[in-house]
């Protein structure tokens, strides 16, 4: 169930929060697990059993790893292999061998779930920040099934979440901040991302594109993906806040980055941290020879690509970023260090956009043919075909999208939100309520199904 749906906003969320707030402190954790399981079942009842079995296995594994005996290393390796095998089976093997029909659906958010569970197992093994295996399965379930982050993150590491599980801080200030964060995310997702997405899919659906249209389509997707994912993370962080939990930030104005490494410190931060903490640093990180370091980086980026999807596109996309980062680190940094930030930001933005072509194209071949269209192989010249038609439609959405990628604009908004002048607060509240109404229109309107052929 998407956060931006009627069921979630007008049934699940109010009911869940109401129950959660009135429920005694002691059993809030247990209630949260029940709510989270209902959330999961709503999206994919058929795979609930799979995920529960996996949970049970990991609970027992955690205890084995945390027992502190010599066997713990073996237990960890065994548990990691099993978890990865389940992920590989559902996400890759089924797709590669076209066997999706043979299973009862793919467990919801499996990639995020697997990384969450691995974080638990490894943290327990290492004893990061003094964490221990969860003896109480409810605590572990709270962490693993936590519904705000279950489907698409942020991938919260266990060691930062563990201290919160016992007694979440359901304070008025957390609830208030969470609510603001949640509606911000909702606006980003529904009023910006979905609008951009509508135009993008039309342009992507054209048989071929002029140079202008190819660039416009790529820009639309670039903005759509950011507002979709960032909006979703905002909603997750906001929901967690309303429940008394603190999740880490997932985005930090990524399109204002001044380099690819910088971009990855600001885009899907929780995933980057995961790979850094659980793959890159254990492999030696950058405290080793240059050649080893390059190998480490390529491994991480290959895995990052794989994690995003089973098709070759994603692998290519991951390697593309890996190569760019290595080049940036070892070759270009010397030259570009003194360039003005503005130029670095623009260059980074273009490189990232080109990367997204591999993300949105259905196959590697189509990705390369789209890249060709950027240079004019679409056969429609620079501004031919439907260029002017889409230019006029995309103007406002793109301007709005780009505007909210500028750090200064977001800072100004945050500043206004904290204004001490009541009039500013009232105006902001009225605008927010109007936007909320528009959101509901967008969400319900999207389900408009009219049977044109019914009465032809």
């Amino acid at each position, binding site marked *: 169930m998407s956060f931006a*749906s*009627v*069921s979630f*906003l*007008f*049934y699940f*969320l*109010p*009911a869940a*929060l109401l129950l959660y707030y009135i429920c005694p402190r002691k059993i809030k954790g247990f209630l949260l697990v029940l709510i989270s399981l209902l959330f999961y*079942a709503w*999206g*994919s*009842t*058929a795979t609930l059993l799979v995920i529960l079995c996996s949970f049970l296995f990991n609970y027992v594994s955690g205890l084995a790893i945390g027992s502190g005996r010599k066997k713990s290393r073996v237990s960890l390796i065994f548990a990691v292999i099993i978890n990865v095998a389940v992920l590989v089976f559902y996400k890759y093997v089924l797709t590669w061998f076209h066997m999706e029909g043979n299973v009862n659906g793919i467990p919801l958010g499996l990639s995020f779930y697997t990384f969450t569970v691995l974080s638990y197992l490894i943290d327990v093994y290492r004893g990061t920040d003094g964490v221990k295996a969860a003896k109480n399965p409810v605590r572990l379930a709270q962490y693993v099934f936590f519904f705000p982050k279950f489907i698409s993150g942020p991938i919260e590491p266990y060691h930062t979440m563990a201290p919160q599980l016992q007694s979440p801080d359901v304070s008025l*200030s957390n*609830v*208030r*901040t969470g*609510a*603001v964060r*949640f*509606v911000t995310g909702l606006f980003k997702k529904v*009023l910006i991302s979905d609008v951009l997405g*509508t*135009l993008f899919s*039309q342009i992507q659906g054209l048989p071929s594109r002029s140079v202008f249209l190819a660039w416009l389509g790529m820009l639309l997707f670039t903005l759509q993906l950011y507002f979709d994912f960032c909006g979703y993370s905002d909603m997750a962080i906001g929901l967690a806040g309303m429940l008394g939990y603190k999740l880490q930030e997932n985005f930090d104005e990524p399109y204002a980055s001044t380099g690819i490494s910088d971009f990855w410190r600001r885009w899907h931060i929780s995933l980057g941290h995961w790979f850094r903490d659980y793959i890159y640093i254990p492999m030696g990180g950058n405290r080793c020879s240059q050649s080893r370091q390059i190998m480490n980086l390529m491994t991480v980026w290959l895995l990052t690509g794989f994690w995003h999807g089973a098709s070759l596109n994603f692998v290519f996309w991951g390697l593309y970023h890996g190569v760019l980062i290595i080049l940036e680190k070892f070759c270009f940094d010397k030259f570009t260090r003194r360039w003005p930030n503005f130029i670095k930001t623009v260059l980074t933005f273009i490189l990232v956009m080109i990367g997204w072509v591999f993300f949105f194209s259905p196959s590697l071949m189509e990705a390369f043919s789209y890249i060709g269209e950027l240079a004019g192989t679409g056969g429609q010249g620079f501004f031919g075909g*439907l260029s002017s*038609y889409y230019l006029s*439609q*995309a*103007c*406002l*959405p793109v301007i709005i999208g780009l505007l909210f990628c500028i750090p200064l604009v977001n800072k100004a908004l945050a500043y206004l939100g*904290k*204004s*001490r002048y*009541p009039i*500013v*607060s009232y105006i*902001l509240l009225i605008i*927010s*309520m109007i936007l*909320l*109404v*528009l959101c*509901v*229109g*967008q969400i*319900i*309107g999207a*389900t*408009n*199904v*009219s*049977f*044109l052929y*019914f*009465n*032809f």
Partner: protein
Amino acid sequence: MYTGAQMNKQQYDQYNMQIPRKQKVPLFYKMVFPSLAVFLIIFMLFNLLSKPRTFSSQENRNLAQMPELSLESLADGSYFSALSAYQSDQFIGRDYWIRLRNSTQKFFGFKENDGIYFGSDGYLLKQGEPLDETKLNATLKAVDDFSNANPDMRITFLLVPGAQTVLSDKLPSGISAEDAFPDRSKAIELTQSVLGNGNNPYFTYVNVENFLKQAENTDRLYYKTDHHWTTYGAYTAFTNVKTAMAIDEPTPSFEVLPVSESFQGTLASQSGSFEEEDTIVVFRPIASDIMPEVDYYVLYPDEKIKLSSCYRMEKLAEKDQYTLFFGGNYGRLEIHTTNLNDRKLLIFKDSYANCFIPFLIPYFQEIEIIDPRYYYEDLDLLIRNEQITDVLFLYSENTFFEDVTLKDVLAG
């Protein structure tokens, strides 16, 4: 600036800006949560208390109802998807939320929604579907075979272009008729090549595209909010197809009667754009010396009823007012007239024909109307029993290119 002994941040702030010790929660933050809570809970209560609707006339479909909870539906996941559908279908004021979305999209500058262009002067125009050549080829082949197998019948084949072709000047700027229906020229070429080489000397393929484009007042040929042509469109085509159908009698003069001014058709529903209302008119023949009045009745074999008019005024109270003409689409209808000239016409058609057929009534003794989408009987038997002399195929391009039922009916 104060540079004295150690001073922490808070003291520094107090010193400079006289902010109270405890940072006050910004007013905006105080208000958002209660406002959001009230907003969500009010709608939740409204939704829980309101009575579910069974049918949406705006969307022309049955709305999802509360699903029944069972172990089976829970296990296969269908329960929750049905529940979600129920919750969004039954949301209070659903029709208005859909309209709100349309307005929002127009605000952003969108010029189409769900395959419908927002044209100028309030026209909604549908995008043409991609062509499936094998499908069309099979239909055309069946028409050609039928024509060759019945060389003694006068067969007229009339294909009506859609508004996106005829009213291309109403398309949003930057969109040509070609863009709005990219595969049309290919489809027309195929049609001409297959039907142009038949052996039946009495077969005529009439292309009314040019007649319609050259009509006096093209604006009124199509509805703004519906995918059909108007009675004016049908009339224009009729005056131009008379010769091909060998109708030698003169055309009577007509009195044009507006019967509805509140028609909002399928394109309004599909796009969620309800700003315009269309007028539906009917043409009432004025009896004169040159063209005496012809009486008729319409027989509905399935319903076993006979009506003395092809206009069913009670349908104007329904959402799809276009069903005024004959009450919609039936597998088979018969019209019997007092013009005993022994000409018996068989029509294969889609709903474009419904407002066209009234013009034909005075010239035939009997008209058999078949809508292949709902017709499952023996065609040969009908042709023999009714002693058919004339045949008319009347389709809109948009349906004909997609049709899969005509070929089966023609094959028998």
